[in-house]
């Protein structure tokens, strides 16, 4: 196990032979033919090879990292290797200052959404053999970069909190009665997908509208509100209150149905559909007053 350190290498000089990691000229030839569905086949091809990753680096405090750059790493490939595995390997073996959030390694904590080869993806849920090399790994766009792949999530959390993301109902039976509120299976099914969100922020990062309008609630927060608004256990009045929040200028109307949120969501939540449904609900509610 080596703790070898190589000189930082900038994006401008991608052909620099002093690349980090295990030297492997073969990796150069190993240009994948784009997205391959059958990764088993692809993986077999890669066995014993290395994977070339290009990772975005930035650190406001460190000389030479204040100007963002890309570092190259060559990581030995193993079957089943994910993008997260590759950066973890690079960090543990080559450069311990490589920084990113991660925790569960199983797509439930939502820490490791990165911008991988031009798309928001969860590092731990993306097989590296599915990607074209070199694999470009960047922090999520539209959020400020704190360091390397770590972005500032505060704004995302603020938006999530804005929609009053908690169950509200006045007439739940007393807990001592051990009586639960009733909910039909259909209604549970209706909110099922929306309740899967792991707050990874990929959707928000992919949305051009959210990028342009900082106050736009964004797909994740709207989806969170959807989960409550569509839950029959909450009363009509609260639902109307929720719709009023969503109808704000920076609420649902901002969505221009670009669908990129739906495309990147690692939990396959039909975000656009949920947003559209809320628009219709809001219109219906307003029509009632006319």
């Amino acid at each position, binding site marked *: 196990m080596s703790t070898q350190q190589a000189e930082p290498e900038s994006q401008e000089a991608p052909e620099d032979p002093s690349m980090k990691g295990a030297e492997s000229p073969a990796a150069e030839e190993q240009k994948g033919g784009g997205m391959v569905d059958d990764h088993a086949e692809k993986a077999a091809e890669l066995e014993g090879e290395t994977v070339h990753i290009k990772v975005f680096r930035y650190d406001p405090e460190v000389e030479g990292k204040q100007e963002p750059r890309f570092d190259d790493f060559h990581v030995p490939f193993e079957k089943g290797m994910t993008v997260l595995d590759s950066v973890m390997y690079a960090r543990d073996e080559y450069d311990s200052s490589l920084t990113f959030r991660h925790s569960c390694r199983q797509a439930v904590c939502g820490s490791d959404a990165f911008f991988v080869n031009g798309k928001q993806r969860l590092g731990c849920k993306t097989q590296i053999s599915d990607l074209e090399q070199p694999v470009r790994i960047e922090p999520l766009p539209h959020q400020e970069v704190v360091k390397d792949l770590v972005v500032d999530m505060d704004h995302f959390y*603020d*938006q999530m*909190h*804005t929609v*009053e993301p908690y169950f509200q109902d006045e007439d739940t039976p007393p807990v001592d009665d051990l009586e639960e509120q009733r909910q039909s299976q259909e209604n549970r099914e209706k909110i099922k997908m929306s309740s899967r969100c792991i707050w990874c922020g990929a959707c928000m990062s992919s949305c051009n*509208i959210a990028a*342009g*309008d*900082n*106050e736009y609630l964004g797909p994740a927060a709207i989806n969170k509100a959807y989960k409550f608004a569509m839950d029959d256990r909450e009363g009509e009045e609260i639902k109307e209150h929720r719709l*009023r*929040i969503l*109808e*704000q*200028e*920076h*609420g649902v*109307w*901002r969505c*221009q149905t670009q669908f990129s949120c739906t495309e990147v969501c690692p939990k396959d939540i039909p975000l656009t559909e949920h947003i559209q449904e809320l*628009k219709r609900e*809001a*219109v219906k509610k*307003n029509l009632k007053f006319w």
Partner: protein
Amino acid sequence: MAERYSSFTPGGTGWFLQRITAAFLVVVLAFHFFLLHFVNHAYEVTFMQTQLRMENIGYFLTMVLFLVTAAFHGVNGVYNALVNQGLEGTQKKVVLAVLTIAGVGLVAQGIYVALAMRGMI
């Protein structure tokens, strides 16, 4: 925790009318195109023909309604687009005023033109 938004300006009406007008426009615009480019050819249009068509009250009214909806749809669309780009405060009010005036002007001039075509002016 982030503050809650408190300005109550539901953008729903504009959004809704944009869809309603769009649905109407699909029909009339298709009709319009057909009539003036395929049935009659634009290059053959003469004042006489136009006058003839306009004298039909149904056609006249359709065209006026077409104009009104298209103007609304177009101007409202531009307004929404600008608002979506983050237009705020006074700027927003000014844009709204300018667009309204332009829209109303367009419709007024258009009706004036249509009346002229009917020979009513």
